[in-house]
């Protein structure tokens, strides 16, 4: 199953989802497409005038372009998400995760999508980590296994 992770650039969540046999939906895949696609229009991320149109699906034109630009990257992830793991108030939000309004909107859209959702806090102690990993493993086990990649 395709599992959306938040923070979408998280190493821990991405690794755990893959470890337990599902496909993580992370922002790195989308950024990779923008970087590697042929014929860079506007390096380094190859955002073309077409991209903010995807963002317009979620936010009005007067909303800051940063939100719309980010939403254009999140669009395919949200569209394909079949389940989601969300870490509440992650300590750090840099780079692609550095926009509070986009993060709020993404969390709202995930809830509105009515998909299986697991909410957690980042662990700070070993006991917390055990609970964190256990909850994620139980949640992922309850989902259908990921389809074999072609």
């Amino acid at each position, binding site marked *: 199953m395709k599992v959306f992770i938040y923070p979408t650039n998280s*190493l*821990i969540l991405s690794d755990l989802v893959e470890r337990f046999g599902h496909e993580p939906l992370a922002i790195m895949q989308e950024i*990779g497409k923008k970087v590697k696609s042929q014929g860079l229009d506007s390096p380094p991320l190859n955002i073309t005038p077409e991209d903010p149109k995807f963002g317009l699906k979620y936010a009005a034109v007067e909303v800051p372009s940063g939100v719309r630009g980010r939403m254009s990257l999140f669009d395919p992830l949200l569209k394909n998400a079949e389940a989601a793991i969300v870490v509440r108030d992650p300590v750090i939000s840099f*780079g692609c995760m550095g926009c509070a309004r986009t993060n709020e909107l993404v969390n709202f859209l995930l809830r509105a999508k009515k998909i299986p959702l697991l909410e957690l806090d980042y662990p700070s102690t070993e006991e917390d980590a055990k609970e964190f990993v256990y909850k994620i493993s139980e949640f992922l086990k309850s989902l259908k296994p990921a389809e074999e990649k072609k």
Partner: protein
Amino acid sequence: MDTITKMVVINSSKLLPSDVVIKLYESNADVLVKETCFGVMVSGERQVVDSLLSNIRKLDPYGIFIKERGFAPGEPYRCRATRRGGARPGFHNLENEDKMLPHIASALRALDKGEIPRLKQKKKKLDIEKLKDIIKETEVSQ
């Protein structure tokens, strides 16, 4: 052809990035390998990289963490060699999560042993009726 880059973050007491790099070279797979301070970056065809890294993970299942990376190793827009130094974007998040990796590793070890952690009980919020009673009790009678 779907080319991807994966980051292998090593947080192990028995494995060094250089050991992993040697193993990757030994495999003779058609991939680009870069050793870094936190581990290794591997770039190549998706299927090749995925199967290679699933074998690499077996070297230390609790000490190796893997995630995909958008940019290729040494990408001039991200590589600090061409950006006059400083941490590259994305490093701060990695650094922050790196501190939690020993805890995650021991949690994974406990999970494999079949240990079920005692789930924390959520603190209940104060009941509104109880609050009203407290207010009534503390009110100064006029």
